[in-house]
């Protein structure tokens, strides 16, 4: 459970891109009894609500972001038997097909890792203070609306 308390490694908010292999290797380090690693990568789609998207800009609430992500991560560790987990979320300007977010969970058995990664993403979507603003090819700029489906997804995990 070494990395369980290494908060600085488990939550990262950054403008730069991340490399999946590097991050998963770091996550697995010192945990020999891991049998399953589930990772989720969210990427910028080139379409939203029927419109082409040229640029996506991510704003966040520094300070609260880290705290809320760590709270979600620890909640996952309380609900499922996990060996390690991490969350990386990018902020700033992104382009279509860029990586936005990585959630990775390692456990002895796959069921726990699948549930925990899904849970973390659903909670992140509704509880972590990030906001997306998209620029269309004609120059129009608009804030992305929250989705009812995301609210419903998070509510399914209510205990």
């Amino acid at each position, binding site marked *: 459970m070494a990395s369980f308390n290494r908060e600085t490694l488990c939550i990262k908010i950054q403008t730069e891109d991340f490399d999946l292999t590097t991050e998963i290797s770091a996550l697995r380090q010192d945990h020999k009894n891991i049998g399953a690693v589930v990772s989720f990568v969210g990427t910028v789609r080139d379409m939203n609500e029927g419109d082409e998207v040229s640029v996506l800009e991510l704003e966040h*609430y520094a300070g609260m972001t880290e705290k809320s992500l760590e709270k979600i991560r620890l909640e996952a560790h309380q609900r499922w038997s996990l060996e390690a987990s991490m969350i990386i979320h990018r902020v700033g300007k992104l382009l279509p097909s860029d990586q936005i977010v990585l959630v990775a969970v390692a456990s002895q058995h796959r069921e726990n890792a699948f549930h925990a990664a899904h849970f973390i993403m659903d909670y*992140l979507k509704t509880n972590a203070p990030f906001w997306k603003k998209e620029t269309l090819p004609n120059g129009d700029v608009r804030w992305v609306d*929250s989705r009812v489906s995301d609210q419903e997804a998070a509510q399914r995990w209510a205990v």
Partner: protein
Amino acid sequence: MTSRTSAIHILYFANFREVLGQAEENLPATHNTVSELLTTLAARGEPWKVALFDNENLQIAVNHDIASRETPLKAGDEVAFFPPVTGG
């Protein structure tokens, strides 16, 4: 001018920041709850009333934790107002 430690520090995010024309401000710590603070802000006029006071989807955080209109406030608190989050 109220100094930050004896005041309530307020932050506005995303479209709130744009509609209200500011990212942050300090107000006196004479407001005992978020609701009282919202009443003061609503008195500034239409955009404040619509974006915050009347907004059923208003999200509130006090000292980085999700809060509600009933959450009590004291000097030095950081209050943030923002629309529903859309990260991930």
